[in-house]
């Protein structure tokens, strides 16, 4: 259904009244033919209209001095004051830097990890072993972030598990969460541990759709396992990788605050305080909704631009793109 509409949209792109009429005629035909599909789609579409599009007018509070008593429409306009306050904030650059660095670590290390796991699992021929590894690596995904963080806090204590293990290598025990230089490692590392199995599912699915004849052909051409992976497997899942990468780049300013606020303390603010945790403190704890909306809006605009740029580059370079 989607692809047909896309086609239709492409056709109607050319000017002329008859073209538009054609389009509507086609839409009608399409509607008649697939009315049950349209009906099913209605739920999803109305979900987004009701819960994502209609409430978007609330974004105006970024430009207002929002007071719950006066309501979203009744609050006074204050222009860009919230934005200038944020840009002039003492912590603006630090927040931006921390957010980007954590995101970058995530992109460079945590993003490839599930791909590598999927490729490794793909080479495993022993089904039972493969299944076991898969199940074990999925499990942490289902554990609540609060529990995970609680474990990290406990393990990082001076007498905690991490320190016991580090002690075997002669590292002196210290509370790891008090060292600003370790925060990013702990944050990204635990993220990989939690997400690697779950993240690999989509790649495994992509792997299974590669035509086995290609492998046979490669074998005939004398390619060993390594060459097969390099020239058949990786190109086979490349569109999936690119799509996910573009989406990830579109979320580069989003480092979730939940795990950050569970793990940080004033001593590690200098590396741990990110935009979202700052918004949490200002917005939720101090009930400064306008300010935090302005910061989030800024975030979204940056994300949106990055997404478009990444998509455009990808389309130019290797013909894979989101739209």
């Amino acid at each position, binding site marked *: 259904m989607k692809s047909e509409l896309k086609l239709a949209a492409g056709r109607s792109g050319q000017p002329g009244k008859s073209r538009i009429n054609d389009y509507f005629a086609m839409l009608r035909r399409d509607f008649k033919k697939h009315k049950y599909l349209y009906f099913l789609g209605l739920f999803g579409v109305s979900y987004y209209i009701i819960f994502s599009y209609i409430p978007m007018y*609330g974004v105006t*509070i970024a430009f207002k001095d929002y007071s719950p008593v006066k309501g979203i429409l009744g609050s006074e306009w204050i222009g860009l004051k919230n934005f200038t306050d944020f840009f002039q904030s003492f912590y603006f650059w630090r927040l931006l830097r921390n957010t980007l660095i954590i995101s970058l670590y995530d992109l460079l290390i945590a993003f490839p990890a599930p791909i590598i796991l999927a490729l490794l699992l793909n080479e495993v021929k022993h089904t039972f072993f493969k299944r076991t590894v898969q199940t074990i690596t999925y499990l942490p995904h289902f554990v609540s972030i609060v529990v995970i963080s609680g474990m990290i806090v406990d393990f990082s204590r001076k007498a905690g598990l991490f320190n016991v293990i580090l002690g075997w290598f002669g590292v002196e025990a*210290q*509370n790891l969460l008090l060292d600003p230089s370790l925060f990013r490692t702990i944050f990204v590392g635990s993220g990989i541990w939690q997400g690697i199995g779950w993240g690999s599912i989509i790649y495994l699915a992509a792997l299974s759709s590669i035509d086995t004849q290609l492998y046979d052909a490669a074998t005939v051409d004398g390619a060993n396992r390594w060459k097969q992976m390099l020239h058949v497997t990786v190109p086979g899942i490349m569109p999936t990788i690119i799509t996910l990468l573009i989406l990830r780049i579109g979320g580069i300013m989003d480092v979730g605050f939940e795990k950050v606020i569970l793990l940080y303390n004033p001593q590690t603010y200098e590396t741990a305080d990110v935009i979202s945790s700052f918004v949490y403190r200002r917005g939720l704890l101090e009930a400064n909704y306008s300010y935090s909306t302005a910061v989030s809006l800024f975030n979204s605009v940056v994300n949106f631009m990055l997404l478009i740029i990444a998509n455009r580059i990808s389309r130019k370079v290797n013909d894979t793109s989101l739209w």
Partner: protein
Amino acid sequence: MNMMKIGRLSAGMLMAASLLAGCGNSNADNQAGPSNRAAEDGAKQVSFLWNGKFSSKIPELKSYGDVAAYQEIQKRTGISIDFQDNDTANLSQFNIMLASGMYPDIIYVPSTYPGGVAKLIEDGVAIPLNDLIDQYAPNYKKLLDANPEIKKQVMLDDGTIAKFPQVNLDLRRNAWAGTMIRQDWLDQAGLQMPETIDEWYAALTAFKDNDMNGNGDTTDEIPLGDQNGMGSITSFSTAYGLLVTFQVNPETGKITYGPYEPAFKDYLETMHKWYKEGLIDSEFAATDKKGFEAKFSNNIVGAYGGTISGINTYKNQMQAAIPDFKLVGVSPPVGPAGKSFSAAEQLAQYVPLEGAVVSSQAKDLETVLKLLDYMISPEGSDLQNWGIEGESYTVENGTKTFTDAVWKDPNYESRVAVSRYAYPTSGMVKVMDYDAWASFELEHPEAQEANERWFNADRTLLLPPLLFSGSESQEISKIMSEADTYMKEMLLKFVMGNEPLEKFGTYRDTLQKMNIEKAIAIYQTAYDRYQQR
């Protein structure tokens, strides 16, 4: 992506608001039932939004309406109360209530609400009560007239009286926090209870150097522990005449911000020395209550700052294993500032910032005022502090004591069991009762001594509850959300030695750049206004 989040959030708020509105409606429908019945027996209905989430370990208790004291209040006044509650972990639920535009008759305003009661009046949510109190609240009027200091704290800067708060006639009840030390360890080391900063240093050093807990390991003792990040170390700033927040300067009587004072450097120097020598828990900055309790129960912590309940809880928990166990409260240490200054701001608060206001949508003002007046009257306060006479307490020669119904409940410990009848240790619209509170919080003689010592400390540094106008509180929140973050961060760095103390000048300059002086000036004007009330 975030835009969607915002969208969803506001949708959520809208939904919640409409749900709330829906609830309001259904409440109205529900009310139709009881109020029809009420109409028959002449009872009136008042809705009351409590500032917090009602929770009880006793499953039968689902709201204040199930507690005997409040049932009795409703019976005696002939007014039925519809108790609603409100999660105050953050303000969003309170704000959703405001956004819904449907206010309950009585709203208990959280102390964290920006602008406070004054803002609610300005926005037309709450109403001034001066005339109504004269008319319908004789008990409250009598209380305010007899205690000018309480009246001063209840009223707004312009003289408006708008709230019925929790009143602390006897401030001894507010001496529930301070520093505590292991007396049995002191005895073992042959030391007196520390009174000065130097004696503290000696005591903590002795704790560190000796095997106090007798497990054969001289290195596992933590002389000074911390249960919430910085609570223990910040309490030592009073020795330098400073608080780690806004305070009164003991010499000039003007407002200042403790961490911005030059003397703060001396305090940091001492703390850094203590930290470097291992007198302070090396993990103090990342310790939470759970982690601390584990350490304390392991018998390795010598002293810490916290609430009085620790004295009772730890004694009950540890005296079986350690017969000599004795945790005692210590007067705030004397240092260069020369006095034992208290850091417990509640000791300057007869009336906390929160309190119950009457909403502008309340229809039957007479009934609402009469109910609030009854709650704060001696009779209503007794009910809320002690429960039902003859059931949960008895009076002998004018002294009230709880009965075995509270002390010997088959299922629950006494401090839980009492909540069937009353809430003696927590706030509400009432005059708090020291004896009722002490029955639970001062279980052991050590706690009584601690209470006395903490109460007797000098209160010069402490600020009364101040009120700020809407724009003032916005300005303060803008300045302090940065300055406070910066100060805490630097405090830790200075103490832990990640930042040398020579940088103290730069630190002060940065605070100045963050407009800390403007914030101090705003506090000063608010303080002046308070004095002139």
